[in-house]
């Protein structure tokens, strides 16, 4: 079983404003794109972030071989409990998931 980060070219995360986080999975080719689309469910992403799957926006962009998730930030940017001002590290939570 391979981890997402081993199957795709790059996973990156970034703030989309202070209240949203966005994670872009650059799959690299159509085969990896199909694999990610079919095996990475929105529910698993929600579980990794301990959030509601209905709060997550999912985009599958075949022209770029990209799968993108946007979700309310785990903590509002810069709040006392926030750990990551720019949303830089959150990509690793998905990159380390095993693909079924």
């Amino acid at each position, binding site marked *: 079983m391979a981890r997402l980060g081993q199957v795709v070219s790059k996973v990156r995360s*970034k*703030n*989309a*404003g*202070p*209240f*949203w986080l*966005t994670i*872009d999975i*650059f799959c690299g080719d159509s085969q990896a794109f199909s694999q990610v689309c079919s095996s990475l469910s929105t529910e698993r992403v929600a579980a*990794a*972030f*301990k959030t509601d799957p209905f*709060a997550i*926006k999912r*985009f599958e*962009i075949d*022209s*770029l071989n*990209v799968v*993108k998730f*946007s979700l*309310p930030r*785990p903590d*509002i*940017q*810069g*709040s*006392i409990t926030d*750990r*990551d*001002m*720019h949303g830089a*590290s*959150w990509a*690793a*939570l998905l990159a*380390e998931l095993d693909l079924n």
Partner: protein
Amino acid sequence: MPSGALGLNYDKAALARGLAAKPDLIAIDGGSTDSGPAYLGLGVSKYSRASTKVEWKGLMQARAQAGVPLVIGTSGTCGTDSTVDWMLDLTREIADELGQKVRIAVLRSSQNPKEMADAFESGRITALPHAPDIDAQTFRDCTNIVALAGAEQIAAAIETGADIIIAGRTTDTAIIAALPLMRGCHAGAAWHGAKIGECGALCATNPQAGVILIDFDVEGFTITPMADRSRATPHTVSAHMLYENSDPFILFEPGGHLDVTDATYTALDDRSVRVTGSKWVPSEAYTVKLEGSALAGYQCVLMALLRDTHYVEHAAEWAADIEAKCRSKVEDRLGLAAEDFRIELRLIGQNASFGDLETNPGASTEIGALGIVTAPTEALANEIGKMLNPYLLHHPLTEEEEQPTFAFPFSPAELSRGAIYGFRLNHVLELSDPMQAFRLEVIDHG
């Protein structure tokens, strides 16, 4: 566009190449919310004055050479009136040094908290998705509130005939989209090109080079990076819509939204890309987004390093015990209630990035224990920091073991962070006229 932001530097040779292509306007972004709520809360720039001056001077020289307007949006990181004044001061200083006589248009975006509270009570302010719960008092609590200007306000500034436009908070795209919209270019292309260009050469290979040129026309736009070795491809350009956007196809702006679902990206050669098919969808109401930052307390931080294997292995237990014991000491000795202050130890090397979401804590050689104290006053934060100090230095896992000592990297061990701030608004304000929330001033300098 010389780069993604003033303060990030730009490639001088690429800028010269851009000037040779005879642009109609030079635009650069001066900030965003990305560096956190303190810059807006305090109304200050995140970049050094000296760096900003060097880069702005280069652009003021480029403007004089090209004879076209130079526009900066979101001046001084947060775009408050105070950072607009900071940018204006720099501009006057540089103009004097260069012997330039310039007309400066200043667009101010700061909002009066009391007027915003009234606007909220009269129903002119509405929440965006995942906005925090607020009431009228939230606005009065904010030390700074700014509204994000769009293309209309930048167009008004351009129409003054200004050589230099110093704008407060604007959308990243407005400073680029305004001129092509004024000239009757395709509205979808104007906004889409502006979005692709707002981070400079981030939409191309060799993104650090910065400078890009965008040609707008009645059907679309063409994007060309100016640096050597920098190439735009249909993939790099279309992929840029993903960046920092929660929706890669839709972008909301004052007065409507951009929809790039049907956009077509075509390579013109090995470095330029032509884009057509983007749509601009006007909205019924004219709204501008608000950003506000309020005081969130005072902090004091400490750092200790654990290198002893026994303590590295039991760091979580050690940290939890310190938090509990120190909290109880603070309640006892300072008479504070549990909800009045916060003590947190973040274990760097274990789970400092994700906290409870961490699935892979791994085995560390050493762990940094970052102690973060938050309290209602600076004096209390520092008092609590001094109470935390002896625990971080000597706290044993059990009473039986020999007293340990941990490494402190500095003295004093307590670092006062002073006031801290928090973002309070994710809302839009409805305007009857685009200039209603903004002030435009023209200054002839020199």
